[in-house]
């Protein structure tokens, strides 16, 4: 298989979505099995492409013969494929969780939704066309909303409705932005837009910037735009939480990067700047810092575990956006490490907390009491996950946080003040994670009977944990991944050159 | 009655030498139940100046050598006096003031006052009078000192030897009022 068949990554899930609908009539197990198989294939294929890309550089998979900048084409960069593999891994673990559920009349629909989700995510990360990105963005949102509303209780419906409203407004914004770009530059190819963005007047640039901001910030769970998170996380089912907290976040971050750094930003002196005259990087940094603080405070006073995890997810996203806004090689490396940490450990946390709270009436902190006695495996998973989340030394979170501080401090005074504030806020994060972990250690006599072990959960959790440990303890491997991805992120020129096949663009 | 005479338990040898110091430094504890307490301050202060003899008031029975019973003793206070006396360290002496501890004085027919202190604890010296004047008190003190020097003031030894006898007496009188005391409690 060559890189030109990268479209399979999108097409296979789409095809399977239809197939599973049909096959589901015969046996409701089939779609679930198909799901796992497809995702395994996708994961394998994306890693294969990753190795290909790491040796050959950015590749362009042309669809239907139109050479860029015309037509729709898929751009395979190291960065996007890396995140894609990560997303597949998470969807895989989520679907293992999903498979473990008893089949009911919804199983086939959910499987279809998951296929749709996979396809949309693949499309988002692979496409080189901004309108195409919009389309996948919408599909992605629809899949997310439907998944959230699966549980059909008040909270989930309310959450999904909020999400729907915000993402619809956001997509309208995005559409306006895309329209503006098309109207002025006459192209929809991301590479070409990035190349010619400087031709725009500053006012137009600012308009587009605001539109993009409005479109993406609600997806990246950034504070004033993220009012959907608590209800959605709290109301959604467990595997949806994993998808939302990890896969969606990663995809959103990828879109954020493409919109703001490939299109609007351009690298000078080892750093991305924005063409519009107000210092856009500072706006992003400020918003993300505020987001971190507000989410940490919100999580600190929350009692429901899922709500805490939701807030924590928002704050981590804020931290990653902050790392993006510093936007040099070091901060991108930090951001990548943080992305790995966020997606893997958040998935583990959602998974294990669900198992620990099993049987409790109220899904709040108190239901964690005595978890270690009741459910040692998942408690241990939870502890590992949260230790990585809060940055226990020599875990992914630690490396990410430290290198974030390092890059922020060396950037400029403004960022070092903000990073200080963020660090203070993340002390609150430590506090509530340790509060949860402490509850696990509490031993009470009436809770000692062990809960039944769910092997699917355990398998999927330990899969994620294994990846996390490998990343943390295999320095060479992680170092290579992170540095080549960050290098890829920094290298906008190669991206444009490779896509537009123009070597002499400089 | 008493089982041992004073001569048999007199101080001898080394004790006689130490008695010289003891008599010169009599620290007293005054149990001020009656009117005798009024007479003590003039005895202590500059007019009669008890401190000439090395005597001084002490705060607790542990520190004192000399117990002053200054007046009548009710049954209830007798119990306290005995407790205090037993807490004092040997050698120790008791001086009874006035006629009440000797024979009951004006309370001789009271149901609640004991008539004769010597039945319940060894009194080394009684100072007569109702109440004794400071001169008489000083006189009594000097007599006690002489007795100590001769080794004859050995009431505490008597108490030790005749412990059972004293205790029986004490029990008798205390049981007489125990019904009242119990009710009180």
């Amino acid at each position: 298989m060559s890189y030109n068949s990268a479209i399979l990554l999108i097409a296979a899930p789409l095809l399977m979505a239809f197939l599973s609908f049909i096959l589901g009539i015969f046996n409701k197990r089939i779609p679930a099995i198909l799901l796992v198989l497809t995702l395994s294939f996708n994961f394998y294929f994306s890693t294969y492409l990753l190795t290909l890309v790491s040796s050959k550089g950015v590749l362009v998979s042309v669809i239907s013969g139109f050479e860029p900048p015309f037509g729709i084409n898929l751009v395979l960069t190291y960065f996007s494929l890396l995140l894609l593999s990560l997303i597949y891994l998470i969807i895989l673990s989520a679907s293992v969780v999903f498979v473990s559920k008893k089949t009911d009349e919804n199983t086939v629909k959910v499987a279809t939704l998951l296929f749709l989700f996979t396809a949309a995510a693949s499309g988002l990360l692979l496409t080189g066309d901004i309108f195409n990105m919009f389309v996948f963005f919408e599909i992605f949102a629809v899949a997310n909303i439907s998944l959230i509303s699966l549980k059909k209780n008040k909270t989930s419906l309310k959450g999904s409705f909020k999400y729907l409203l915000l993402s619809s407004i956001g997509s309208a914004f995005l559409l306006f932005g895309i329209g503006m770009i098309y109207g002025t530059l006459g192209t929809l190819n991301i590479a070409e837009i990035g190349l010619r963005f400087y031709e725009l007047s500053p006012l137009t640039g600012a308009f587009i910037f605001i539109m993009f901001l409005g479109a993406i910030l609600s997806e990246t769970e950034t504070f004033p735009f993220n009012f959907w998170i608590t209800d959605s996380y709290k109301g959604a089912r467990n595997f949806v939480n994993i998808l939302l907290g990890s896969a969606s976040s990663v995809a959103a971050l990828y879109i954020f990067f493409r919109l703001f750094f490939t299109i609007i930003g351009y690298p000078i002196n080892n750093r991305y700047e924005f063409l519009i005259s107000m210092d856009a990087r500072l706006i992003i940094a400020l918003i993300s810092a505020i987001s971190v603080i507000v989410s940490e405070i919100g999580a600190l006073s929350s009692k429901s575990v899922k709500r805490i995890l939701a807030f924590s997810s928002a704050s981590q996203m804020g931290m990653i956006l902050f790392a993006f806004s510093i936007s040099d090689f070091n901060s991108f490396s930090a951001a990548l490490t943080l992305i790995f940490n966020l997606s893997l450990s958040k998935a583990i946390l959602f998974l294990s907390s669900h198992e620990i709270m099993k049987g409790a009436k109220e899904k709040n902190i108190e239901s964690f009491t005595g978890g270690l006695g009741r459910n040692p495996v998942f408690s241990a998973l939870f502890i590992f996950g949260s230790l990585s989340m809060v940055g226990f030394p020599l875990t992914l979170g630690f490396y990410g946080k430290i290198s974030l501080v390092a890059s922020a401090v060396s950037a400029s005074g403004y960022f070092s003040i903000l990073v200080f504030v963020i660090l203070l806020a993340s002390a609150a994060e430590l506090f509530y994670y340790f509060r949860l972990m402490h509850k696990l250690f509490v031993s009470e006599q009436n809770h000692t009977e062990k809960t039944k072990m769910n092997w699917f959960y355990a398998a999927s959790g330990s899969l994620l944990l294994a990846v996390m440990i490998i990343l943390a303890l295999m320095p060479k491997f992680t170092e290579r991944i992170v540095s080549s991805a960050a290098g890829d992120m920094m290298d906008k020129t190669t991206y444009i050159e490779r896509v537009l096949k123009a070597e002499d663009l400089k | 009655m008493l089982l041992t005479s004073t001569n048999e338990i007199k101080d001898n040898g080394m004790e006689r030498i130490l008695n010289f110091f003891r008599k010169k430094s009599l620290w007293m504890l005054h149990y001020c139940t009656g009117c005798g307490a009024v007479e003590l301050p003039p005895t202590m202060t500059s007019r009669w100046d008890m401190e000439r003899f090395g005597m001084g008031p002490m705060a607790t029975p542990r520190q004192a050598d000399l117990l002053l019973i200054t007046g009548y003793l009710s049954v209830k206070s007798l119990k306290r006096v005995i407790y205090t006396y037993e807490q004092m360290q040997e050698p120790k002496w008791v001086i009874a003031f006035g006629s009440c501890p000797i024979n009951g004085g004006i309370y001789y027919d009271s149901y609640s006052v004991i008539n004769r202190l010597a039945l319940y604890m060894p009194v080394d010296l009684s100072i007569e009078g109702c109440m004794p004047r400071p001169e008489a008190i000083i006189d009594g003190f000097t007599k006690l000192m002489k007795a100590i020097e001769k080794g004859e003031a050995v009431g505490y030894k008597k108490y030790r030897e005749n412990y059972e006898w004293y205790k029986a007496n004490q029990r008798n009188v205390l049981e007489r009022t125990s019904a009242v005391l119990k009710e009180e409690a």
Partner: protein
Amino acid sequence: MIDNRLIYVMSLLLFLVGLYGVLTRKNILKMLVAVSIMETAANIFLIGLGYISNSSAPILSESLKQVNLLGSNISDPLPHSLVLTAIVIGVGTTALGIAIAVRLYSHYRTLNINKMGDKDEL
């Protein structure tokens, strides 16, 4: 005939109308309608981009067999296709919204959004 700028302004106004609707309507369905209006505004904006004054539709008819690229007077076809896609997606979103609205109604027995902000366990 029609100035492009007018279209832009109109679409912007329409967008604001939609926003106003989302902000002020109490009924969920009306809110969804307002959201649709916003999307429509964006669509109109896109269409307006492709529009050139006094041009004809971009249909390859007999008379336009010879396409003179320099002096052509046809409007840009690409926005139309884009809008077509966007409309389809918008319909999907709206349908989803309506489905959720139905569910919400079955829970709350009302469509008034103000009565849905119930205080659950924090």
